């Protein structure tokens, strides 16, 4: 469920090169691709808001709200929010990865080692290449992991990851070289905040701002309780009321799409050869492939200073938007 980065790049090059209009380097493509992906991603939320105000057809595949939700669902996450020093202040789930101080995409490649007596289980090792990079079991749930076998991406349905172990459902081919890439997820938007401890019912927390907080705490009828808790969201931290809540918080959130990478090795004639193992696909829903290419072309038109490309691409994008929202 992703858009192949090589397909997009080749299509863009094909259109650009037609009539010798110009060329886009991989570095330019990666940067424009990231920009375009974020642009399309951000439109999901405004479009969803717009469509929620319009009566929908309750028919398979034609309900625009459902279709938009399907696109957003790729980026939906749910995780535990850790308390800071057992207080009522909580960090966001993804911050575990950020606290390492490393780049947002580690791109770690590591040769796994088979554990003794279990040929289907492999331990994610360390990347010894400079700079050496490691991940911890705690970081794994906060990142996207891709496993390549002999350079080909292995479907996530063929394995499960527990801690730092990759458990294959069936034994991989003998002699297969496994490469593991880890990309920490980046927090984008906060969704629901839930509180659940022990065997008590799960309670949803209501988001309030500091102006409301004073009134809510002062009113006996609306004072927050463990059954009706509230929270402030400030400085990437969640402050929960009543203050007796210091654990059991989990949040649903939207993560940012990971930047696409079209990576390469140099061929014999110094030409760019696509390297799937170190590349990363666009994470957008395949339904957005056309719009993605058109928007990249639009930016490409700016790069190569060709107004005709910009006009054609802009017109196409506009037409598509009209169709989707009318």
């Amino acid at each position, binding site marked *: 469920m992703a858009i192949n980065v090589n397909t997009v790049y080749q299509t863009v090059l094909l259109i650009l090169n037609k009539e010798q209009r110009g060329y886009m380097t991989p570095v330019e493509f990666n940067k424009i691709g990231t920009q375009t992906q974020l642009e399309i991603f951000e439109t999901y939320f405004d479009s969803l808001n717009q469509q*929620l105000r319009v009566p929908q057809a309750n028919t398979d595949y034609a309900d625009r709200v459902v279709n938009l939700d399907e696109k957003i669902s790729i980026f939906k996450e749910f995780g535990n929010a850790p308390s800071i020093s057992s207080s009522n202040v909580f960090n966001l789930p993804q911050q575990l990865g950020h606290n390492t101080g490393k780049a947002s995409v580690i791109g770690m490649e590591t040769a796994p080692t088979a554990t003794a007596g279990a040929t289907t289980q492999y331990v994610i090792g360390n990347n010894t290449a400079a700079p050496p990079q490691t991940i911890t079991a705690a970081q794994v749930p906060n990142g996207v992991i891709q496993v390549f076998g002999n350079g080909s991406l292995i479907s996530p349905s063929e394995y499960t990851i527990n801690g730092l172990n990759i458990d294959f459902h069936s034994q991989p081919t003998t002699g297969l070289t496994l490469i593991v890439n880890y990309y920490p997820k980046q927090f984008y938007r906060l969704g629901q905040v839930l509180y659940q401890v022990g*065997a008590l019912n799960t309670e949803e927390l*209501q988001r309030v701002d500091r102006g409301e907080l004073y009134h809510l705490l002062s009113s006996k*009828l*609306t004072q927050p309780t463990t059954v009706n808790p*509230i929270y402030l969201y400030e400085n990437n931290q969640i402050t929960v009321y009543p203050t007796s809540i210091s654990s059991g918080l989990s949040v649903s959130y939207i993560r940012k799409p990971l930047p696409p990478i079209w990576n390469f090795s140099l061929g014999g004639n110094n030409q760019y050869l696509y390297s799937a193992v170190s590349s990363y696909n666009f994470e957008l829903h395949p339904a957005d492939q056309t719009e993605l290419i058109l928007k990249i072309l639009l930016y490409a038109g700016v790069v190569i200073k060709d107004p005709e490309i910009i006009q054609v691409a802009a017109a196409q994008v506009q037409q598509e938007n009209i169709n989707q929202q009318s």
Partner: protein
Amino acid sequence: MPIPNGGLITETNRQYYAGAQQFNTAATASVGQTFTSTFETNLVFGNSDPATNGYNLNNFKLYTSADANTWTELNPTSAIASTTGKNTAVIVAVGNPVNIPLTLANADVLKDMTVVNASTGVVYGTVLADSSNPWTSISCNITTQIPVSTDLRFQFASPWTEAANIITVNASLPASTYLKIQMNEDTLWDMHGDYSYTRLDDVINNFLIAYVGPGKLIPSVKRTDVIFHAKRGLQEFSYDTLRSVRSQELSVPESLAVVMPQDYVNYTRLSFIDSMGVQHTIYPANALTLRPYATPIQDNEGIPTQDSNNSNLDGTSKITQEWDANNPKKISGAYLNDYNVADIYWQNYYNGSLGQRYGLNPETSQRNGWFIVDDRKGLFGFSSDLKEKLITLEYISDGNAYDLDLRIPKLAEEALYSHILYSILSTSVGIQEYVVQRFKRERSAKLRNAKIRLSNIKLDTIIQVMRNKSKWIKY
């Protein structure tokens, strides 16, 4: 249907009727086993040691049994949670770690157990590591010196704890035995009949599910707004719709006054109870006397005097003193030896007075006594003929005083949804007035419906009353 199967009932018959939930312990003896309560009522935990004050806060007890037939409460001195021993003929000095040389023990000594004097309960220290047969020496952190040849008991200060409806047993539970949560009697009273109510939290969640969302009249609303309107609705309904009359059995003291209940909003009736247990309504003395809100001490010219803080000096009410000292029978016109038991066969007095009491004021001609509300002091005052009498105070609260109160009879649940819906729509911008009026009428109709339902008018009761039609009431 003894086992909950997806309906609204989630407790087994045993949980509901007996207040008990039984568990099997693990197949091997171990410490730290956990057991999850599935009672609708949350467990309340203070302490697992009956010797502590916190134990009285518990709303349940924990029992163990080898055969699920004979049950023993699990507390610090239970046989499975403690063991005894005797240190040999040496003094065990304070220190950490210190080995206690033992001569006798009857079960495993476990880490974190407390070392106490078996007879006096003096605490000597804590056990540092598990120890099993032959128990010749126990490693401990000793904080108080142990005298020679002292009978010791090794016990858990808290053999079990509870948090969020999960019980953790610190003691070692024997393999394949049984454990039982037993609710206390007063908790069981609260549980019985609870099915006729819906918790306010459920009402709030149901409202948010069914009435709020895209494409609905309320596309979005803050949960705190719903909570506010739900609680306000519950308050309003409590005053005139719900069967939320509370009552207290009290006796009138020498001071002829009783304090208003903590959750008092208004009274519905005060009665005294005669020796047959029959209640007689006590009437308000509104027209006869009053309790002054302030009784300033006046100077010779009638001006209130002040204290050193420039506040009026307040004296005691002479009106109250005189009312308390009077004989109410002088007001009611009753005979001094009046008899006030609901015994229709006691007719001596009535036989002699039949037809002789013309001209009495019906408002004051009653022998049940009077009460007066003293808002200044938060008291009910009574007339002197009620001194030391047993009385009942029936009053209404607002349904928000305690967590247990936050529930609505199912017969009025729909009315509460309508109330919340109307309250939110009527305070929202952009809602057409006809829509607001529609829901105002709906709220009114559903509230009326709830009142009729809750007034408990049954056909056989009506029939019984209507039978009086056949009675001759005139000679």
